[in-house]
């Protein structure tokens, strides 16, 4: 029987065989192995109740083993006595736990609902997609597994995944697909979606022939696979989507949840056994880090690939913490009971603050250096040993958190720093590596995707420290992180001012500074070293802007807004934050135009020189808009549905678009994005996913014109062309705009009927009046 080197592709519980594992052998074959894998969960509570539970479970010998255990409770900072309940077959463990919890609801439970891959990784060190040396016996029982590439390895061997892509020809929520495109090993096949029998037979043949490891689909979770399975059953043609014989697919329900104040929707999921299924349209952050990043998440979180593709970074970081706890023998609570410490209301003012922000100085600034702490909050957790169990309510201790009256126990590493340290170090290493990797290097894309995946995990780890359902969250630890963060930023500011820099803006983990004589990266180096020495935290230069513009608020231009700016680095690259070009609900027409304006300004020696070209460009875009030559998809607005439809008092444009979709039987849930066009008349929108096509003449040109000029005004106002002046300048040459002749009606009526005439400047232009 095999002894081979390869990658652990998938693992899951089996009702008969305990744990089943699928491997990709580097020599080509795929192996199905198995092994017994008893799992243990713990019950905690009063002795009398534990004794009753013991008696209740003790009549199931061979199936359940009971033991008295001492395990570490991180919140009690001590070992506690628990009843260990070991279930021989992991497949039954969930059921045993649910029955026990229902029968004994007053007990606390730990290590109860952990993913099997976390338990396996904690016990053997082998995690999904780990490159391993594997030995098995003649019956396919796994005997030995040795990890050859750890989760923190920087340069990893490429995994020879056999990937089959399946996509309908059009998005199914938009229009009815007619063809299914299948791609594998460079070959593309097209199947007619109206002749299901032929499709099923051919698709089954392809799956059997190529035996893919990964099915990479578009709308596979929510549309394609459910239909394939339905037709497969109706036609009695099994497709063999699973590699594991005799298993159906695993369905997970759709859900809507809040994350960082935003509502998020996740469609239903379909997971396979023995091979993986990823729906690119339902995967988390796929557009950001794609398959390479998802593989990285799977490796560092020890979650199987198809799970890692669909869970939020928060769940990912939680998995890393739980894995660390399992390895350290620390109980993972099923339901966290720990509440916030009682504290005087007066202390809350100091404690319950977020990151520090110094509002920017509005306007154009030249030769500004942007300096960022590297992964500030994770770095603070690691550097200052912040973890739920290391926070001590001792106001007289030496090691006090600034302004909090809490101390940090530094006598031993906390759970959270232990979990985060390798992640943080890998991210820093990867960033360094990325900085020295030339653009042509084929590994660059891989590094970029993986680095992005790690970045998201690290970004989330701070929020998870305060998240109510986080197993190892604690609000005081969360507050300690921001307190150290504010202190670090203030120290950085003081250092910059000591070195003669002017501080333009502070924003949580970054500062924008300027010095008339220090305009090159080497000039900034001494400041970086000083800040690092004062704070103990890594800091780096993001770049030096040739110029950067901080814009004011929309309501009051004189009021500064944090994190709303755009600028051009010395290497010509552009950075934007908080303006239309960056916003996800901007129309491509507006976002692309704003970005183009920025590029024009960036290319010019002095931005002022680019203004005539910018105005000409805008006139050109308006001409295209009014003549109907802008493609309708470029005018689409994609807004998120923020609540249930019945909760709207005054429906937003997105809600009005959803109401249109409801009339044709299409349902949308809070958190989903709704593409629509602004149109004339009521209801003022056209939902893009309606079955009929929109009338291009109904597009509300005036509204898009306003959006374009407003976005352009944001970019150009620092050079004297705000929205109002820009409107006048751009529309002054009315003959260029091919305006329709207004009918002689009541002015209010024709304003409503003719696109683009509601602007005062346009009115004046129409009437032939000068300024």
């Amino acid at each position, binding site marked *: 029987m095999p002894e081979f080197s390869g990658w652990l592709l998938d693992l899951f519980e089996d009702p008969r065989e305990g744990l089943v594992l699928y491997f990709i052998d580097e020599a080509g074959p795929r192996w199905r192995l198995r092994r017994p894998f008893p799992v243990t969960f713990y019950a905690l509570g009063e002795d009398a109740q534990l004794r009753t539970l013991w008696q209740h479970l003790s009549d199931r010998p061979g199936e359940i083993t009971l033991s008295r255990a001492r395990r570490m409770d991180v919140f009690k900072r001590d070992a506690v006595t628990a009843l260990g309940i070991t279930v021989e077959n992991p497949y039954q463990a969930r059921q045993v736990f649910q029955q026990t919890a229902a029968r004994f609801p007053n007990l606390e439970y730990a290590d109860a609902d952990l993913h099997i891959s976390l338990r396996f990784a904690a016990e053997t060190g082998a995690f999904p997609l780990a490159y391993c040396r594997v030995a098995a016996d003649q019956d396919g029982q796994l005997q030995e597994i040795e990890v050859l590439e750890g989760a923190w390895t920087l340069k990893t061997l490429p995994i020879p995944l056999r990937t089959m892509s399946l996509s309908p020809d059009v998005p199914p929520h938009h229009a009815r697909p007619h063809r299914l495109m299948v791609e594998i090993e460079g070959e593309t096949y097209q199947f007619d979606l109206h002749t299901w029998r032929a499709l099923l037979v051919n698709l089954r043949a392809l799956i059997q022939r190529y035996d893919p490891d990964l099915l990479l689909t578009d709308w596979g979770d929510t549309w394609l696979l459910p239909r394939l399975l339905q037709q497969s059953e109706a036609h009695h043609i099994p497709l063999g989507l699973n590699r594991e014989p005799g298993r159906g697919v695993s369905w997970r329900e759709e859900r809507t949840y809040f994350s960082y104040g935003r509502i998020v929707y996740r469609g239903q999921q379909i997971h396979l056994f023995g091979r993986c299924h990823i729906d690119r349209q339902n995967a988390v952050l796929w557009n950001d880090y794609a398959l390479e990043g998802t593989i990285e998440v799977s490796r560092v979180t020890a979650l199987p690939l198809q799970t890692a593709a669909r869970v939020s970074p928060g769940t990912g970081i939680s998995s890393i913490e739980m894995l660390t706890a399992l390895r350290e023998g620390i109980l993972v609570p099923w*339901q966290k009971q720990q509440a916030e410490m009682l504290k005087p*209301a007066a202390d809350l003012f100091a404690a319950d603050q977020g990151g520090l922000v110094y509002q920017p100085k509005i306007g154009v600034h030249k030769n500004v250096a942007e300096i960022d702490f590297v992964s500030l909050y994770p770095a603070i957790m690691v550097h200052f040993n912040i973890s739920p169990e290391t926070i001590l309510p001792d106001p007289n201790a030496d090691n006090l958190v600034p302004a909090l009256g809490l101390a940090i126990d530094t006598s031993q590493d906390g759970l959270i720093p232990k979990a985060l340290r390798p992640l943080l170090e890998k991210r820093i290493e990867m960033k360094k590596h990325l900085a020295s990797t030339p653009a042509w290097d084929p590994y660059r894309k891989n590094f970029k995707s993986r680095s992005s995946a790690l970045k998201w995990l690290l970004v989330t780890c701070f929020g998870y420290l305060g998240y109510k359902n986080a197993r190892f969250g604690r609000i005081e630890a969360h507050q300690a992180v921001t307190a150290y963060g504010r202190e670090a930023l203030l120290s950085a500011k003081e250092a910059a001012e000591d070195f003669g820099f002017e501080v333009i803006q502070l924003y949580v983990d970054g500062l924008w500074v300027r010095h008339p004589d220090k305009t090159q990266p080497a000039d900034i180096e001494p400041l970086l070293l000083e800040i690092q020495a004062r704070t103990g935290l890594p800091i780096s230069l993001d770049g030096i802007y040739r110029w950067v513009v901080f814009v004011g608020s929309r309501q009051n231009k004189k009021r500064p807004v944090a994190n709303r700016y755009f600028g051009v680095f010395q290497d010509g690259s552009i950075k934007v934050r908080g303006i239309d070009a960056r916003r996800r609900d901007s129309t491509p027409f507006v976002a692309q135009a704003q970005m183009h304006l920025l590029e024009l300004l960036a290319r010019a020696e002095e931005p002022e020189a680019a203004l005539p070209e910018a105005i000409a460009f805008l006139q050109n875009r308006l001409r295209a808009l009014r003549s109907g030559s802008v493609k309708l998809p470029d005018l689409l607005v994609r807004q998120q549905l923020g609540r249930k439809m019945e909760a709207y008092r005054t429906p937003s444009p997105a809600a009005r678009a959803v109401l249109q979709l409801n009339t044709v039987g299409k349902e949308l849930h809070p958190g989903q994005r709704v593409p629509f066009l602004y149109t004339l008349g009521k209801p003022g929108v056209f939902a893009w996913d309606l079955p009929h096509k929109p009338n291009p003449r109904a597009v509300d040109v005036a509204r898009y014109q306003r959006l374009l000029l407003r976005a352009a005004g944001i970019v150009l106002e620092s050079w004297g062309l705000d929205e109002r002046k820009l409107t006048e300048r751009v529309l002054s040459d009315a003959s260029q705009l091919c305006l329709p002749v207004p009918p002689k009606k009541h002015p209010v009526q024709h304003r409503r009927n003719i696109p683009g005439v509601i602007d005062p400047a346009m009115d004046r232009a129409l009437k032939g009046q000068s300024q």
Partner: protein
Amino acid sequence: MDQRIITFPMPTAGKISLVVAPRAVLDRLTSMLAALALRGRVLVVDGGNCFDGYALARALRGQTHEVEAALRQVWLSRAFTCYQMVAMLAELPVDGTPVIVLDMLSTFLDENVNFSKRLRLLESSLNLLRRISQGAPVAIWARARTSSVTAEDQQLLAPLLETARDVWELQAPETPVHQLPLF
């Protein structure tokens, strides 16, 4: 809400006082909290993350120059899950200190926890409050919700109403219908 009600009667030991009202009642509760803080220590358990320290400071400023000292009399802890609510109430000192529970039902509306479990945890919380109320004044605010609450969740109010001795149910006033002025 009825604007004629300016302050609530101070809760007294031996019984639980319950206010069922929309969020607007928070101003009145803050005034009551300020009055209690001027008398001595008071414990606040916040189930809806709605405690407003600045509003309390303003309420105190009208009555004392020693605002910070009074703020130090108000001890606060926030519960974000129904499990935390039970754990927090179990840990409260039973020494006669008045206890105010803000937006008590908010954490029990968590749809991630099944209803029977939430109901059981609510009962546990009320048992703990009953015990505390034997020696200390206890006041609970249950936020009246008009939308986004399922019929099942609405049942959660019943155990509170059964437990409380004094119950104040306040509603937001209906929008008055006025004849628009013609001139």
